[in-house]
């Protein structure tokens, strides 16, 4: 909530300014900046309201639908920020796949949130302190999108010059992801791989159980599920 408020207060105008700089006509640029600020304010407020409703809701079916609505609103926010590809991904993953997969999970478990056995005072205090520390840490950052931030005057030109001089992949984004920031990509790949292994282990355990129960009926000695390892 704190971050949303800070973003609304400070960075929305700068984001609007950055997007308005794309417009070639100065009158159009002013209209774009105003429109984007206005639309972003309302959409961010709606996002905050939906988040509060998700926290307060007990019935998990309602929570799943509200999460889908959150994804649609977030995709609208990304369209207002000119990131259309990210918006399409957010809509299809958040409002399409996630909703359906979460519903499939709900049919295997209970449909009402388990009541908390302890009080919420200590977790609430910890999250407020960490949130306040994060917000305080962002005060020292330069404003969002201004042209003389160090990232635009030092980092980006260095990437461009270096990749041109050393015959790196012609798409600089690929060079950044795979060469300049390769450790980050390594970490992400590790995370995805671990998640896949975990899912496979879970699925294989359940499948073996049902296969064993069937094996008692059939008296089948061939080990056909392929897990000799």
């Amino acid at each position, binding site marked *: 909530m704190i971050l949303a408020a800070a973003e609304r207060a400070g960075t929305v105008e700068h984001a609007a300014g950055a997007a308005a700089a794309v417009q070639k006509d100065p009158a159009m640029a002013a209209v774009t900046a105003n429109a984007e600020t206005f639309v972003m304010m309302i959409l961010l407020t709606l996002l905050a309201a939906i988040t509060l409703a998700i926290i307060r809701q007990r019935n998990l079916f309602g929570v799943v*639908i509200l999460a889908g609505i959150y994804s649609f609103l977030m995709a*609208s926010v990304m369209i207002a920020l000119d990131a259309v590809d990210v918006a399409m991904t957010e809509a299809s993953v958040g409002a*399409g796949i996630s909703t359906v997969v979460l519903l499939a999970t709900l049919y295997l478990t209970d449909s009402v949130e388990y009541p908390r056995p302890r009080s919420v005072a200590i977790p609430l205090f910890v999250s407020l302190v960490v949130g306040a520390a994060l917000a305080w840490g962002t005060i020292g950052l330069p404003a969002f999108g201004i042209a003389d931030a160090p990232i635009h005057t030092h980092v980006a030109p260095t990437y461009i010059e270096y990749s041109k001089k050393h015959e790196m992949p012609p798409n600089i984004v690929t060079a950044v992801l795979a060469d300049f920031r390769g450790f980050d990509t390594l970490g992400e790949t590790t995370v995805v791989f671990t998640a896949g292994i975990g899912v496979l282990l879970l699925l294989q355990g359940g499948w073996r159980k049902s296969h064993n129960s069937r094996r008692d009926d059939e008296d089948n000695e061939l080990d056909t599920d392929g897990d000799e390892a």
Partner: protein
Amino acid sequence: MFYVATGAVLAALIFAVIRAIRGPTVFDRVLAGNTIGTLAILLLASYGFLTGRPEFLDIGLTYGLLNLIGTFAVLKFFRHGDLAYDIAEDQENSGWK
């Protein structure tokens, strides 16, 4: 003129979100979700015209399809409890045709 359109779509969005938060049954929320998907497409169109860049309407087509398929998947779940439900198979298994 596009200010009016965008403002009206945002007002409708606010009402739909209030219904999604308040609605007592789940079907209220599914209805509000479907409406918010339609309003997101209209917001995309009017905002594109407002800023003079209406080239992002392809995303609106994607949203429309996603909205419909998502609503159908959710409703199929509520009714049958199974995404792989097949009406013909269920009828021939239950001996009714």
